C-alpha cells in the first residue's frame, strides 16, 4: 500500500478521499487555490499546499512537482480536473507515482465517446444511433444532414464534455441550430472546445449506471445500479440505488452487460457503465466513466463497501479478494446534491458566506461536504457544496428519512436547491418509482405549506419586522425619535 496520497482535487470529494486515506492510515497531501483556503479539505489533510499558477488543478507540472517534493507515492484525481486526462496519467507513470485510476490507454479509448460506442456496437452491444464524428461550429450543414439521418428527437453533446455541460435536447429540426449554438457556447466556456456530436434521444427513458470495481488481476464485481434520471439542466440532482422500475431480470441483465463492457474496454479501478433504458426496458450503452462518481455514496450504502478504499487497493496492485457472491446489496439509498443556487431566481448560482450550516444526523444519514458554519462557498467552482445520502431498509423508509433529513438541513447566508429536492421527493411519479428523464422538464416549485404554516410564517415575518424596527430605533439617538435627549429632563418648550 502507499505511504502518502496527494489528492488533486477540492471540495467535498477531496474531503471524502482524505477521510478514507486516514481510515487506512495513509498520509495525505491536499491542494488548494486561494479561493478555497477556507474549505474543509485544507484543514483535514496532513499537509496542504497552495496551487499558485493560473491553471490550478489542471497544472500537471505543478502538481507533479508538489507530489515529488512531499514524497507522495500516489495521486488520487477525484472527479473532473485530471481524472480522465491520459497525458497526466502518463506523466505520473514517468514520475514513478501511482495514479489512482485506469491506465492512460483505457482512459483515452473511453474518452473518445463516439469510438467507444462504435466498438461496443461491433462487439454486439446495443448503442443509440449517433453521428460518426464530431463537428466544429463551421460545419452546421453537415451536422444538419447527419441529424436527418439519425432522426429527431436527438441530443447534442460536447465531445470534451461530461457532467452535462454542453448537452442539449433537440426535439425537432427547427430547434437544431439554436440548440447547437447553445451547446457550443457552453462547451467552449466550460471545456475550452466547442466541438459537438449527435446522439439519438430515447424518450422517455431512464438513466441507469452500474457501479463496478475491477482489479488488475481480472476480477470485476458490481455494487448494483443507480438511477440518475432526475436532473436539472442536464445535471443529476437526485440518484438512487437500486433503480425502482427495473424487474429483477432486467436488473441482472444490466449488471451482466456492464461487466462485459468493462472487460471489453479493460477497465481498472472504480468505474460506472452508463445506459439509457427505454420504455420497454431495453438498455442502450452510452459511455463508461472510469473514475469515482459524485453519486458513489448510494452504492457504498447499499453494499457497505468503501469505494475509495477499493480504488486505492486496486491502484496499489492488490486483488479485490472477494467475489460477486460475497457482496450483499441491502436496503435502499438516495443522494441529494445540495447546490448553492437560487430556485426562486431561475437557479442562478448563489455563492457567498454561509451564516449557518447544520447538517442532519441520526441513523442512516450521511453528509459529505467541504462546508461548515461561517465558511465561504466560492463562486469559482461548481455549485455542489454538500451531498446528503440516506439509507433505509426499503424505498419507502428511505424516502421518508430523506424527507426528514432535507427538512432538518439548516443553511442560511446563501440560497440552495433544498426546496427543489423537497418537491422532487413529494412528486407522485417519484413516489411511485416510475419516473423517467421527462421528470425534470416540468416546474416543481409550487408551495408545500399548508394554510396554518403560512399564517404562522406571516406572524414570524411580522415579528422579524417589529424586532428589526426596535433595533433600528435603539440605534437612532433617542432625541431624534422623541424630541428628548438624556440631558433634557424637562419637557421641551
Amino acid at each position: 500500500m502507499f505511504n502518502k496520497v496527494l489528492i488533486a482535487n477540492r471540495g467535498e470529494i477531496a474531503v471524502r478521499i482524505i477521510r478514507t486515506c486516514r481510515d487506512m492510515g495513509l498520509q495525505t497531501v491536499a491542494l488548494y487555490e486561494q479561493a478555497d483556503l477556507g474549505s474543509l479539505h485544507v484543514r483535514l489533510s496532513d499537509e496542504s499546499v497552495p496551487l499558485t499558477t493560473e491553471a490550478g488543478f489542471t497544472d500537471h507540472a505543478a502538481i507533479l512537482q508538489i507530489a515529488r517534493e512531499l514524497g507522495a507515492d500516489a495521486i488520487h484525481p477525484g472527479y473532473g480536473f485530471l481524472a480522465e486526462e491520459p497525458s497526466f496519467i502518463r506523466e505520473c507513470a514517468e514520475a514513478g507515482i501511482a495514479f489512482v485510476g485506469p491506465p492512460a490507454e483505457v482512459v483515452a479509448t473511453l474518452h473518445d465517446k463516439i469510438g467507444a460506442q462504435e466498438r461496443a456496437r461491433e462487439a454486439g452491444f446495443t448503442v443509440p444511433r449517433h453521428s460518426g464524428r464530431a463537428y466544429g461550429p463551421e460545419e452546421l450543414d453537415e451536422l444538419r444532414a447527419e441529424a436527418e439521418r439519425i432522426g429527431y428527437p436527438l441530443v447534442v453533446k460536447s465531445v470534451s464534455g461530461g457532467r452535462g455541460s454542453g448537452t442539449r435536447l433537440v426535439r425537432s429540426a427547427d430547434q437544431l441550430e439554436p440548440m447547437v449554438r447553445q451547446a457550443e457556447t457552453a462547451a467552449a466556456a466550460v471545456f475550452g472546445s466547442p466541438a459537438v456530436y449527435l446522439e439519438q434521444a430515447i424518450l422517455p427513458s431512464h438513466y441507469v449506471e452500474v457501479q463496478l470495481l475491477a482489479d488488475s488481476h481480472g476480477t470485476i464485481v458490481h455494487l448494483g445500479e443507480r438511477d440518475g434520471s432526475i436532473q436539472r439542466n442536464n445535471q443529476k440532482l437526485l440518484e438512487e440505488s437500486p433503480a425502482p422500475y427495473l424487474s429483477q431480470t432486467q436488473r441482472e441483465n444490466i449488471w451482466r452487460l456492464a461487466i462485459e463492457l468493462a472487460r471489453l474496454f479493460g477497465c481498472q479501478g472504480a468505474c460506472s457503465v452508463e445506459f439509457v433504458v427505454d420504455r420497454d426496458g431495453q438498455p442502450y450503452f452510452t459511455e463508461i466513466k472510469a473514475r469515482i462518481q459524485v453519486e458513489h455514496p448510494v452504492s457504498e450504502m447499499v453494499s457497505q463497501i468503501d469505494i475509495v478504499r477499493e480504488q486505492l487497493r486496486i491502484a496499489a496492485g492488490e486483488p479485490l479478494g472477494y467475489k460477486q457472491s460475497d457482496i450483499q446489496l441491502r436496503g435502499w439509498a438516495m443522494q441529494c446534491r445540495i447546490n448553492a443556487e437560487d430556485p426562486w431566481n431561475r437557479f442562478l448560482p448563489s455563492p457567498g458566506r454561509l451564516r449557518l450550516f447544520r447538517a442532519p444526523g441520526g441513523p442512516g444519514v450521511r453528509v459529505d461536504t467541504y462546508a461548515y458554519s461561517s465558511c465561504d462557498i466560492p463562486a469559482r467552482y461548481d455549485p455542489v457544496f454538500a451531498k446528503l445520502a440516506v439509507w433505509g431498509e426499503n424505498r419507502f423508509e428511505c424516502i421518508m428519512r430523506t424527507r426528514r433529513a432535507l427538512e432538518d438541513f439548516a443553511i442560511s447566508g446563501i440560497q440552495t436547491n433544498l426546496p427543489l429536492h423537497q418537491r422532487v421527493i413529494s412528486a407522485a411519479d417519484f413516489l411511485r418509482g416510475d419516473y423517467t428523464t421527462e421528470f425534470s422538464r416540468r416546474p416543481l416549485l409550487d408551495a408545500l405549506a399548508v394554510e396554518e404554516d403560512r399564517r404562522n410564517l406571516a406572524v414570524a415575518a411580522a415579528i422579524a419586522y417589529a424586532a428589526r424596527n426596535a433595533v433600528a430605533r435603539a440605534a437612532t439617538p433617542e432625541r431624534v425619535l422623541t424630541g428628548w435627549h438624556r440631558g433634557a429632563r424637562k419637557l421641551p418648550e
Partner: protein
Amino acid sequence: MSKINVTIDGQSYEVEVDLNQRDGAELTVTVNGEPLKVTIPDPDHPENMEWILIGHRPYEITVDRNLRWIRSFTGMHTLDVRDREATVSRPISGDGRVKAPIPGTVTRVLVEEGQQVEAGQPLVLVEAMKMENEIRATRAGSVSAVHVKAGQDVKLGVMMIEIG
C-alpha cells in the same frame, strides 16, 4: 404596539405585535383579531432570529433583509410587509438597469444597443460555478447601453445592460 399587514404567497394577515409586552421568551400577538402565543428565543438579536415557536409549532426561518421572502422547511414564501402606522418606502424593482446578479465571466452578449427586448428575454450569458447562466431583461423596452463584452470578467452588481 405595531399593526402590520403581511401578505405571504398572496394571502394577507393583519398582525398586531407589541415586543414590550413579553413574558420572558413568550409573547402574545393577534392575527386577524385572534390571540396567538409565540416564543422568541432571542428577540434582542432579530438579525439572528434563526427560529421561533408559533403556538406549539417550531419554525427554523431565514427572513430576507428587505422582507421580500421568508424561508423555512416548507420552502420559500414571498412576502409583502406593510406597517399600517408608518409610511414604508419599498425599493422599486424592475427598473431598466441589469446588473450582474453573480460574479463570473461573460460568455456571450445576446443583444445590441437599440434592440427591442421583452421582459424575461435573455440578454447576456455569464459563466459562473461551472454553469452557463442566462441573465434576462428586467422589463420590456429598448436597449440603451451595453456595458460588457464576451470574455470579460464581471463582479457582483456590475452594470451590464440598460433598457430605456
